[in-house]
């Protein structure tokens, strides 16, 4: 583990990514302290430029503080990114592990189901699900989770398949451990690193899907999110660039940070790179 950490920290991408991500998380955590009032509150005059009327990032068409929106939006984006990834991991890893470990008919059925999901463009499916279920935080998380699991399932399946052939797994089986125990205690822990890497990138993808949904007006209307801010500011972009630029930068920064971390993690968890 020490080696892993060292490799990670030797990568400039890892350092930069971690710093940025740490910053975003810090902002999200401190949001209620930085901007105690609701980001929906009308804080000043509308169309205030950045720096005007005491608002660093300016205000939107109703006079709401963009900075407050960006800060509170970080919470929403991170919550949705992380929880929907957990949901996707739960579905994907379970199905993938079962398929890879059981093989045979079970494997074939699960792979077919996965393929059905993969043939539907996931953003279109997400729009459909959110529109049918009416947009709230939980239905958005559910929908993003539901469209994000197939790659994870396929990855897990192939990892499990290859690990399951190793000697130590055979040994555990010979000792008479139950299949479930072998899978959970011996196979999965040795198959998990690439899943963690893909999972971290899934967080970034989930944040982007949420932003796109909110941009289209399918976000939870009770939570300020970056995508919503861009969608609302888009119509006035010629008069007031700051309404869409700052939340846009926030999305860019977060997604880049997560990708950098994911990449460094990939290197760190890869024994061949890590030990060199």
């Amino acid at each position, binding site marked *: 583990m020490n080696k892993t950490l060292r490799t990670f920290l030797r990568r400039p991408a890892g350092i930069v990514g971690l710093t940025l991500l740490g910053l975003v998380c810090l902002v999200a955590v401190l949001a209620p302290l930085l901007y105690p009032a*609701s980001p*929906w*509150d*009308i804080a000043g005059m*509308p169309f205030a430029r950045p720096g005007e009327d005491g608002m660093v990032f300016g205000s939107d*068409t*109703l*006079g709401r503080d963009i900075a407050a929106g960006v800060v509170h939006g970080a919470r929403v984006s991170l919550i949705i990114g992380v929880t929907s990834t957990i949901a996707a991991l739960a579905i994907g890893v379970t199905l993938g592990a079962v398929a890879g470990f059981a093989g045979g008919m079970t494997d074939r059925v699960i792979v077919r189901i996965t393929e059905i999901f993969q043939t539907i463009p996931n953003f279109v499916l997400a729009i459909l699900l959110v*529109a049918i279920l*009416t*947009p709230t935080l939980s239905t958005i998380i559910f929908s993003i989770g539901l469209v994000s699991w197939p790659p994870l399932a396929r990855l897990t399946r192939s990892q499990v398949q290859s690990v399951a052939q190793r000697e130590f797994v055979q040994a555990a089986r010979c000792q008479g451990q139950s299949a479930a125990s072998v899978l959970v205690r011996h196979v999965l822990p040795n198959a998990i690193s690439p899943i963690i890497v893909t999972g971290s990138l899934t967080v970034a993808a989930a944040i982007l899907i949420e932003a796109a949904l909110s941009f289209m*007006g*399918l976000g939870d*209307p*009770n939570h300020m999110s970056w995508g919503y801010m861009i969608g*609302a500011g888009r*119509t*006035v972009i*010629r*008069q007031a660039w700051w309404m869409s630029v700052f939340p846009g930068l926030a999305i860019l920064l977060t997604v880049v940070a997560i990708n950098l971390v994911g990449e460094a993690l990939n290197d760190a968890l890869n024994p061949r790179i890590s030990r060199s």
Partner: protein
Amino acid sequence: MNRREFSKLLLATGTTGVAAQTGLFGDMVAYAQNGEGGLTAIIQPEPPLLVVALNQQIPVGIIGGKLYESLLSYDFDLSPRPQLAKSWTVSEDGLTYTFELVDNAKWHDGTPFTAADVVFSCDVMLKEVHPRARANFDRCESITAEGDHTVVFKLKEPFAPFLLAFETSSAPIMPKHLYEGTDYRNNPANDTPVGTGPFKLAEWVRGSHIRLEANADYYHEGEPGLTEIFYRVVPDGASRSVAMETGEAQLSQFSDIETFDVQRLADMPHLDLTTKGYEFFSPVLWYEPNLRREPFNDVRFRKAMRLLLDPNFIVERIMFGLAQPATGPIASTTKFYDANVTTYEQDVEKANALLDEMGLAKDADGKRITIHHLVVPFGEMWTRLAEYFRQAMSAGGIEVVLDSTDPGGFAETVSNWDYDTTCNMLYQFGDPALGVARSYISSNIRKGVMFTNTQGYENAEVDTLFAEAAVQTSEEARQERYSKAQQILCDELPVLWMTEQKFATLYDNRIADLIVTATGVNANFAKAHYVK
């Protein structure tokens, strides 16, 4: 984006002849510019058809209003003016309306227009296909032609706003020779509209444009003043602004231009802005509580909500000045408006006192109650209204949860009364009996039907006042009843009136006499012409 649609620029409009430029993609639709000139206007969304009798949506009314006509048009003060009827008389008892028709009008296919067309339209066809016309003409005992150019409407009982029933989109006169005895909705003539209007349909390229050309046989000498009207479909708001800015289009109406962009365009040297020409519609916008549910059934709660709201905020920050605060159910731009009613200034303290009095105590977070608000799914403006509502209510400790929906779901939810609060805007059609009473009389509580008394307001006295006012013939007697009704309504707040909407018509200032009636851009544009 509609680069392709706008690839053709309209250049000169002086007295010097034809100018058309073909753009990048070069589909060759040249449009003529002669002495009087043609007009390129924006239409959005594209209408499904142009037969106003069958469909009364805004874009249908705008284009159909150039093709079809009715007996009357209306001044900005809503007083009737001649159109297909050159004069009219109303009997002393208010029961008999006699119209003298113009005698030289022809349908676009050359057939002469006669009184038989009017009788067929009002007595037969419109009653079947046009809900609003049906409500008006069902009040008639008989509709008869006397000779070729006189029509007599006999009413069962007086109906004061009857003269307002002859606006084009309310009662378009249809050609009897093409429609009689046919299946109106599937008549092939619907694709090639034949009206009496100053413009004829020349070409319709779906998804691109609708071109109307001047009707050379129009019954007024020297009209129309424009050679053609080119309606271009431009689905994207930003593209519409650009089209007006560059002069590619010379007319935009209703909500074509986003409210925040209107002033910028109005300041351009080649464009003029008017908010006139919507008097007939005069929409009033309100927040609507569902009176069947607690706590909205308590007038104190409604008053508290009203006191938390500030219509001026909506006017300035959401409508960008294209509205004015409303004081009650009847728009100040129409007849029978009475300003002498209970008014409500924003007063958070008073609102909180009312809520305390109701026993709705604040919890540790300062929250009294949680209510839901159904967001109207028709665009930015409505989303902002919902967001403002939530923020305004929070000052009184009322937490508002916003619910999103799609247009179909919205109509279904509201008309089936399955909401806490929502927002709505209704046209007034020039007279309280036509456009106001429907939202407050208990006989119009109709489950499943949109634009009725959806909030479920019941007050026998208000019912009586509206019923009496509709059949009174003297203006004073009507005013007296409408004033009383307005006072009661403003005390009881069945809905929370916020603003009287204005719409912006932006047009090229070389065109004169474009907006000359209370139906503005929906009128026939016969008099519009270029002056420079």
